[in-house]
């Protein structure tokens, strides 16, 4: 098909809008000025050095990694059986229960954070760390259900029927037949849930406290009081992590199949 020149120019402008801010951040991270300057005047790696020597960044990065991985594993453990039930069985109240599973995405993040803070941290007096873990796990369940659900739908049900008619139990069938066929979906779902938990601000904002905070919250506090390229350098490092994750998703499920 012949491409319209006007449309082509429009699309270039839209992608420039999406990428120029990212390019500006990357450029300022190498600047030598003590404030965020664009175009940067000199070249320096001191902001990268700064990232690795700022104790709060390193400490909260570790916390972020830990809670995001654990929350994603919990969400998958709860989500995989749920997705299996929703795609393989017909039962009463299916739509209603499906909506329940998706409710963490319908409720605004700050509301989830606020009510969990009030109920779990204040009323139930659960330690902040476990509240944060619980909040992120719940937040990731819809993700797990959706991605796993769509890869389950791609698995031919007749294979399962064949296994069961040959005498395999439902559990055996799941682990021997279904599971090997959805591993790429599970890996992709893990990666996407992980990055979404890692990036989350609204829920973690309320569920952080003395000594327990995540990297995005620390970055936000830093930005409100400082204006130097340390955040630019940290952003570049995090974007490299995102690219790595996208690469894994592309190799497993394929970005186009999301």
């Amino acid at each position, binding site marked *: 098909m012949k491409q319209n020149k006007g449309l082509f120019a429009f699309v270039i402008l839209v992608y420039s809008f999406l990428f120029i801010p990212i390019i500006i951040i990357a450029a300022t991270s190498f600047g030598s000025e003590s404030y965020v300057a664009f175009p940067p005047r000199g070249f320096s790696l001191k902001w990268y050095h700064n990232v690795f020597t700022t104790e709060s960044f390193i400490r909260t990065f570790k916390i972020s990694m830990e809670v995001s991985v654990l929350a994603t594993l919990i969400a998958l453990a709860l989500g995989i059986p749920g997705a299996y039930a929703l795609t393989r069985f017909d039962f009463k109240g299916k739509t209603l229960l499906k909506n329940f599973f998706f409710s963490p995405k319908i409720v605004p993040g700050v509301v989830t954070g606020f009510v969990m803070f009030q109920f779990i941290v204040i009323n139930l007096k659960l330690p902040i760390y476990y509240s944060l873990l619980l909040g992120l796990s719940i937040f990731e369940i819809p993700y797990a259900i959706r991605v796993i659900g769509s890869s389950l739908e791609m698995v031919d049900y007749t294979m399962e029927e064949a296994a069961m008619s040959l005498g395999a139990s439902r559990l055996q069938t799941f682990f021997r037949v279904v599971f090997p066929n959805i591993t790429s979906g599970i890996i992709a779902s893990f990666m996407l849930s992980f990055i979404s938990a890692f990036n989350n601000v*609204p829920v973690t904002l309320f569920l952080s406290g003395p000594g327990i905070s995540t990297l995005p919250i620390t970055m936000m506090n830093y930005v409100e009081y400082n204006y130097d390229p340390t955040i630019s350098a940290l952003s570049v490092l995090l974007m490299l992590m995102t690219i790595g994750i996208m690469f894994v998703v592309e190799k497993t499920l394929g970005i186009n199949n999301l």
Partner: protein
Amino acid sequence: MKKKWAYLLMAPGLIVIVAFLIIPILSSILPTFHDGDSLTFSSYTDFFKDSYYNQIFMRTLRISIITVVICAILGVPTAYFVSKSNKKIRGILIACTIFPLLTNSVIRSFAWITILGRNGVLNNALLTLNLIAEPKRLLYTEGAIIVGSVYLFLPLMIVSLVGVMENIEGELFEAAESLGASKIKAFFKVILPLSVPGLIVGCVLVFTGAASAYTTPQLLGGNRKMVLSTLIYQQTMTLGDWYGASVVATIMIVTSILVMGTINRLAAKLNERGV
């Protein structure tokens, strides 16, 4: 037998969601409807009568609606281009669309601080070109929140649209053209109506996203231009007014459900008419 399995498999997830999300929501918002023993809505009428709160509510709606409209205007042609590109280019463009989506919202808002700040990229450029005499205040305005929100949610709109547009047969467009329609006319009469389902999903995602985003309004609007999500945080953490925060929480949930319900019902109606 089969059904028992289904409920058993879903039980753990559902129990966690009910115990740690649904019950906390109810325990926070039910008290706002009680006055002693009787049912009351006075906290809500008070909220909307208060000009300060009313202004924040209207600002949140305004920002979300404008964001949706701009995302649709920029997203529709872009998604169309992406969906009609050859496989290799489409893959690259989709990766370029998803990358910002997976990038932290703090980073994406920080980029706009760099651009819109008093000594930012835009002010410097305008000063150098002698278009303005002194730096303009671009940050901490509603405009800044809107630009930041469009930046945040445009990829979501493009992705929702591409999924639907990919399935539209290219022959339909060519048929319209060969019957004498101009490219633009063929687009509006053939492609756009068939893309409505994707557009609706995109609009719901962008609206609910923009109406509940915290990072962008906090970093680009600050305390000058509060929205519901920054208000709820301020009421809880700064003012300790948990009752007030619960009122805002209810309003946010109801708005989100109302908007989703309305748009979905609209979608169902359009489907009935066979558009």
